[in-house]
């Protein structure tokens, strides 16, 4: 196999490092081998590389000087612009220079810029509450285009910042994106959705393949933690609106948020960190959830919900408010048609 030639520099700023830790959970028995197979040469990564201190800085300088081509700059974590635009809430260790400036300079020489996680894409959790550090994404501040690089910024191939949003990101989302960029073919602009997210995972809804779908169909709802029912009506679940393939791709083996017994908080969406209501409660008007399933008309939702509620089988109703299967499906006596 040829030596991997797609040089990736990975930096972390205003985040938790969780997207890197998630990446290490990629579904493979040979993580390094997988990177090699997709052609990625990790120039430097804060957790996985040998180089430290002056050695790390030398790698970054080589990227800036053009001695080493920087094919992709991956940033994990939001950019901290405060206080007062100085960027001093994160000074890159050993440099006495704000990470804000490093990100600006490295983005200018990178062939592609990838925002890994919702922090780097949109601001994310770090921009929550009063946003004490004036955190934002590389090219977005919440759902407003702009951010650090500006709405008009494009890489030399014409792509905006590639926003692999998620909190954390699924390892597959990151690796597929890097593989697509490393393949050498120009990535078509329509490979990204209108928020810059790779459509390979963002064209699905979390609702798709949710294991609670039968409860959803009948609006048989959970009303407390550990209940098996649908979490849309009461528990704050946004799976019918959030763009991601979490229930198709699955996490860490057999997982997803809804399979873990808790609501989707739409962590791939800009502004998810400030939903305007308590995360664990569904906001409603006149008993109807405000956040209706994407692409569904309210009148139809209300009509179908009331119809399906009255049609709910006893089994589904009982199980929906239990923490384990209480009533098993009926065994029919005839051959199934």
């Amino acid at each position: 196999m040829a030596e991997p030639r797609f040089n990736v520099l990975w930096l972390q700023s205003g985040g938790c490092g969780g997207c890197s830790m998630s990446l290490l959970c990629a579904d493979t028995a040979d993580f390094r081998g997988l990177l090699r197979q997709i052609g990625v040469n990790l120039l430097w990564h804060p957790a996985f590389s040998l180089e430290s201190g002056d050695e790390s800085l030398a790698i970054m300088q080589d990227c800036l000087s053009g001695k080493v081509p920087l094919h992709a700059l991956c940033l994990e974590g939001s950019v901290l612009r405060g206080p007062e635009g100085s960027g001093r809430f994160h000074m890159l260790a050993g440099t006495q220079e704000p990470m804000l400036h490093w990100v600006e300079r490295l983005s200018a020489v990178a062939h592609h810029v990838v925002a890994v996680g919702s922090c780097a894409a949109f601001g994310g959790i770090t921009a929550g509450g009063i946003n004490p550090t004036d955190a934002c994404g590389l090219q977005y501040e919440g759902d407003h285009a702009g951010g650090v690089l500006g709405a008009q910024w494009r890489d030399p191939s014409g792509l905006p910042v590639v926003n692999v949003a998620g909190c954390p990101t699924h390892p597959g989302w990151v690796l597929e994106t890097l593989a697509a960029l490393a393949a050498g073919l120009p990535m078509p602009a329509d490979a990204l959705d209108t928020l810059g997210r790779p459509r390979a995972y963002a064209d699905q809804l979390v609702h798709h393949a949710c294991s609670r779908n039968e409860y959803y169909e009948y609006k048989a709802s959970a009303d407390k933690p550990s209940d098996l029912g649908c979490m849309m009506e009461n528990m704050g679940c946004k799976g019918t609106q959030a763009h991601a393939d979490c229930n198709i791709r699955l996490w860490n083996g057999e997982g997803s948020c809804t399979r873990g017994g808790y609501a989707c908080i739409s962590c791939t969406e800009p502004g998810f960190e400030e939903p305007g209501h308590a995360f664990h409660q569904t906001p409603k008007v006149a008993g109807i959830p405000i956040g209706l399933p994407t692409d569904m008309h309210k009148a139809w939702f209300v009509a179908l919900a009331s119809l399906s509620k009255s049609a709910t089988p006893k089994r589904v109703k009982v199980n929906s408010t239990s923490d384990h299967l209480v009533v098993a499906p009926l065994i029919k006596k005839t051959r199934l048609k």
Partner: protein
Amino acid sequence: MTRLLVGPFNRVEGDLEVRLEVSDGRVTEAWVNAPMYRGFEQILQGKHPFDAMVYVPRICGICSVTQSVAAARALAAACGVEAPPNGVWLTNLMLACENAADHLTHFYLFFMPDFTREVYAGRAWHAQALRRFSTQSGDHSREAVAARQRWMHLMGTLGGKWPHTQSIVPGGSTRNLSGSERFRLGSRVAEMRSFLERVLYAAPLEEVVALDSEQALEQWLQRDPLHGDLRLFLSIARDLQLDTLGRGPGLTLSYGGFADPDGQFAMAPGVWDGNTLQPVNTAQIAEDARHAWLADAGAAPHPSVGLTLPQMDKPDAYTWNKAPRLDGRVLETGALARQLADGQPLVRALWAKTGGNVATRVLARAMELARLVILAEQCLRAVEPDAPCANDAVLPMEADAFGLCEAARGSLGHWLSIRGGRIDNYQIIAPTSWNFSPRDRHGTPGALEAALVGAPVQPGEKTPVTVQHIVRSFDPCMVCTVH
């Protein structure tokens, strides 16, 4: 005298900078800087108290579960709710899973690669270290990542994903376990046991846990000095005299690990001073912001009334981290502290002889990893499929509460005040806040700052390798430290 500014320090979680003064080939003074501030304590103010369960795991991508558990315990105390036995076992299982994964990651990906460096090319063990731990091609680090990935299926099933699960709630766990799921997870635990017994220890877990004296350790090592990565480490440690590097303070802290449904700890809590084990008195904890870029109230307050407010351009400030102290004293926390508190005889014997240092920290962590996998097996057996896993929690309008937890890296505490049904104050002291604390108002350096003094520095070194060993021996988590 020369001055060195060392950073970015990778293979630690988050960003770290160390400033050193070096004279005659030794570090004479050190200052530790956590150079990033995000402000979680400010973000949480005014939020619905249960929103903490979404925000706080996201403080840290590597110890996310422990942040959730500390928050859930603080909220459970505020609500007066207790988890049913299944909720306790499932939470302990997730904690054991994350702590074990962190120990494994630290050993294979963060700590051991430094022994593959060129500077050690002449050493008898160097070829083995390169073959096993090279960040580019190490056989054993590659296997460790694969084993870790399978092990984290425990978190996939129990937590939905890792990091940042929300299945941990004040009243227990939102995710029950069926009998067949328990069977599947059992096979994942068996895979981890098999990896450790084959590659890390080259011995049964029980044999490692039972090592009870220096003599026993010596015999175990001599049986096959390069077989198994722990023995290779012990051989390296002896050759490089790692027990003389990075001397920690004479005081260690553990809040106690893995309480069962009756409140009995699997790993006892306590403050160990080399002679006696004292109960932990959290009322004696105070955080001193004198040298942090944070508002300093003129005194070091208890975290229940603590304040975290940025204040740049403050004379003498050099980090975003405050200096936590217990009754005014500097202490060390982590796996070493837990094993000392729990009375592990080998760890106590080594501590009595050479104190906390690079070798004892790494050995204590490796021994604890064996215990964590055994503990996970026990938790899994204790889970009763389909029995209740969570009790509903009802929030009071006013409360002051705290939650404690042992993270892989040591003692983690959350202090919470609720007023008018909203979070009024939230203060967090993380393990590395203790270990990597700056000087306090009396000028007393933190644990790492003191541990670095005396470290040998070779001529021309800009990022001294001994400093790297010492720093990484603590397994720091900088994103938790400042949050």
